[in-house]
C-alpha cells in the first residue's frame, strides 16, 4: 500500500528495513528528519539512535561501528558533510562499509537552507585527502530513495566501501507516495570475517588505515585502484528517457532531472528530439552508458543545482565530439522548465556553446 512520506523519512525507514541498527548523527537542516525518524523508530527495531557531539565524532562512530561489523549509517547536510571528509578518507582506506546521506543545502559557508547539488565535486572527486572514491547514489524520487538506500547497504558490504546517498534538499523534504515491498531480503553477502568484533575462536583482526612504507602505500593504493575499477565496471547506474530517437540530450540527476523531464515534454511538443540521460550513480559516473549515446547526440546539456560541476564529467566523456552546454541555478534556487528550454535553445540549438 502506498503511503505519503518525506524523502528523509523514507531513507530512515528504508535503512531500518535494510538491517541498519545504529544511526550516529548530528542534527542539521534539511536532513534533520533522518535522525528524528531514527530517534522515533530505532528503539522498537531493537537498534540505537545515537546523537553524536559533532559530525566529526559522528563519522568516527560510524567508523568504529562499521569496523566492528555493524550495518551503520549517518545523515547530514553540506556543512556537516564537510566535517566528515577526513573520516570518509579513513573509511575508504580502512575499507569499512557504511552509508551516509548528504542532503545538500545552499553553500558555501553557512549558506542557506534551499536545495542544491553543489556538493557534487566534494562527493565524487573526493572531498578528503588522497585518491579514493565512495560510491555515490543519487535518487530522483522518494521511492528511489528507499530502493537505493537498501541497495547502498549491500553495495557497502560487497565492496567494503562507504556509500553516499546524494540528495538535494528538495528530495529530502518532498513527500511522495511510496511503497515498501514486503520484507527486505539482503543479497547473499560476504561474511564479515575481517571485522574487529572480538577474536574468540579465530586469529585477531585489525582494521587500520595506515601503511608503514611508501612501497606498501603504493601497493595499497593500487589494490584500492583495482577495487575502484571493479566498481566502475560493475556499478554504473543510470536511467534514460526518450533517448532512442533523440538528437539532443540533457544530463541531470535528482530534482533537476525531474524538472528537466518537464522541459523535455515542452521541447518534444515543439518537435525537438531531445531526451534525458540521468546518472543514478554519480560515482562511478555512468560513462559507459553515456558514451554509447555519444555518436547519436548532436548536443548535450547538463542541468544542475550548482554553478556547473557534473558538466565536467559529461565533457570528459563526450571529449569534444559534440557541444556540451550547462544551465544551473544556485544558492537554493531551482530552475523552471521554461528556463531550461530557453537555455537549451540558446546554447545548443543556436550553437552558443563551444564544442
Amino acid at each position: 500500500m502506498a503511503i505519503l512520506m518525506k524523502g528523509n523519512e523514507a531513507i530512515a525507514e528504508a535503512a531500518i528495513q535494510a538491517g541498519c541498527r545504529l544511526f550516529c548523527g548530528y542534527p542539521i537542516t534539511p536532513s534533520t528528519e533522518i535522525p528524528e525518524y531514527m530517534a522515533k523508530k530505532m528503539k522498537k527495531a531493537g537498534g540505537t539512535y545515537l546523537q553524536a557531539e559533532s559530525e566529526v565524532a559522528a563519522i568516527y562512530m560510524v567508523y568504529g561501528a562499521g569496523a566492528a561489523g555493524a550495518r551503520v549509517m549517518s545523515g547530514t547536510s553540506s556543512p556537516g558533510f564537510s566535517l566528515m571528509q577526513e573520516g570518509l578518507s579513513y573509511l575508504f582506506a580502512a575499507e569499512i562499509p557504511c552509508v551516509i546521506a548528504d542532503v545538500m543545502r545552499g553553500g558555501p559557508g553557512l549558506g542557506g537552507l534551499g536545495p542544491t547539488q553543489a556538493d557534487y565535486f566534494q562527493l565524487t572527486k573526493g572531498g578528503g585527502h588522497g585518491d579514493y572514491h565512495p560510491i555515490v547514489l543519487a535518487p530522483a524520487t522518494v521511492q528511489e530513495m528507499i530502493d537505493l538506500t537498501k541497495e547502498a547497504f549491500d553495495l557497502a558490504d560487497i565492496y567494503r566501501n562507504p556509500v553516499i546517498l546524494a540528495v538535494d534538499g528538495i528530495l529530502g523534504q518532498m513527500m511522495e507516495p511510496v511503497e515498501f515491498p514486503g520484507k527486505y531480503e539482503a543479497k547473499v553477502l560476504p561474511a564479515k570475517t575481517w571485522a574487529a568484533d572480538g577474536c574468540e575462536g579465530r586469529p585477531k583482526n585489525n582494521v587500520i588505515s595506515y601503511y608503514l612504507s611508501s612501497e606498501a602505500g603504493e601497493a595499497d593504493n593500487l589494490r584500492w585502484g583495482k577495487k575502484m575499477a571493479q566498481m566502475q565496471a560493475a556499478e554504473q547506474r543510470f536511467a534514460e528517457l526518450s533517448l532512442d530517437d533523440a538528437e539532443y540530450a540533457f544530463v541531470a540527476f535528482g530534482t533537476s532531472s525531474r524538472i528537466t523531464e518537464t522541459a523535455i515534454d515542452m521541447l518534444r511538443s515543439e518537435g525537438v528530439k531531445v531526451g534525458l540521460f540521468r546518472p543514478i550513480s554519480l560515482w562511478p559516473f555512468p560513462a559507459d552508458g553515456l558514451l554509447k549515446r555519444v555518436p547519436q547526440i548532436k548536443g548535450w546539456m547538463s542541468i544542475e543545482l550548482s554553478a556547473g560541476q557534473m558538466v565536467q564529467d559529461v565533457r570528459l566523456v563526450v571529449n569534444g565530439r559534440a557541444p556540451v552546454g550547462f544551465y544551473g541555478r544556485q544558492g537554493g534556487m531551482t530552475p523552471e522548465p521554461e528556463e531550461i528550454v530557453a537555455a537549451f535553445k540558446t546554447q545548443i540549438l543556436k550553437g552558443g556553446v563551444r564544442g
Partner: protein
Amino acid sequence: MTERDMKRQETAVQGTAEAEMTKPVTTASATTKSVMTEPVTTTSATMKPVTTKYVLAGFGGQGVLFVGKVLAQAGMMAKKQVTWIPAYGPEMRGGTANCSVVISDKKIGSPTVGKPSVCLTMNQAAYEKFLHTVVAGGVLYVNSSIVPELPGRDDIRIVRASVNEMAHELGSAKVANIVMLGIMQALTPSVSDEELEAALMDLAGKKPELAELNRKALKAGMEFANRL
C-alpha cells in the same frame, strides 16, 4: 531563513498541540470577487491527462503546509500521482511559508511549481508574492480576513473569503485553513469530496473532537463556495 523556522512552520500542522503562539489577526471582512474564467484543470473525465499544480502560501502557523498535505494525501488515495514540497520564505519568525503540490494522472516530472494553476494566499505577503505567478485562467484563493483588497488580475479567477471569521464561528480560529480547503474543493476539485474528507480524517482525525471540527470546517467552506 532560519533552520528553526523551516522546522517549526512545518510542525505547526493542523490538530497538533503546536499551534501558533500568537493569535491570528482577524480584522478584514469577508468579500468575494470572481471573474468569469474557468479553472484550468478539473478532474472531469477528459482523455488528456490532467495535472493540477498548487502553490499554497501564508505565514507560519496558518496551516498552509497542512492543506497541501491533505491535498496530496487525497490525490494519493485517488490513485493519482502526487508530490508535496515545502518551501520557506526568507524572513524570520512570522515569515512566509508555502508548499507546492502537484496532483496528476500521469508521472510527475518537475515537482516544483513556479506557475500554479491553483493558488492559495493566506496573508498579504503571499498574495503579493504569488499573484503574478498564477497561470492565465488559473484560480487564486485569498484569505480576505487578512489580505486587504488589492489590485488583482483580470485573466485569473480570484476567490476571496474571510475564512478566519468563518473558522471563529465554527469554534476555532485554527481551522481557517480547512474552511479554505473546502472552498477550493467546491470550486477546483482534484479529487472527489469523499476522497478529500477521507484524507483529512487520515491526517487530522485521530481525536474525535478534532475530526468533528475539521469535518465541519470543510463542509462550511464547501457550502460557502457553493453559494458563490
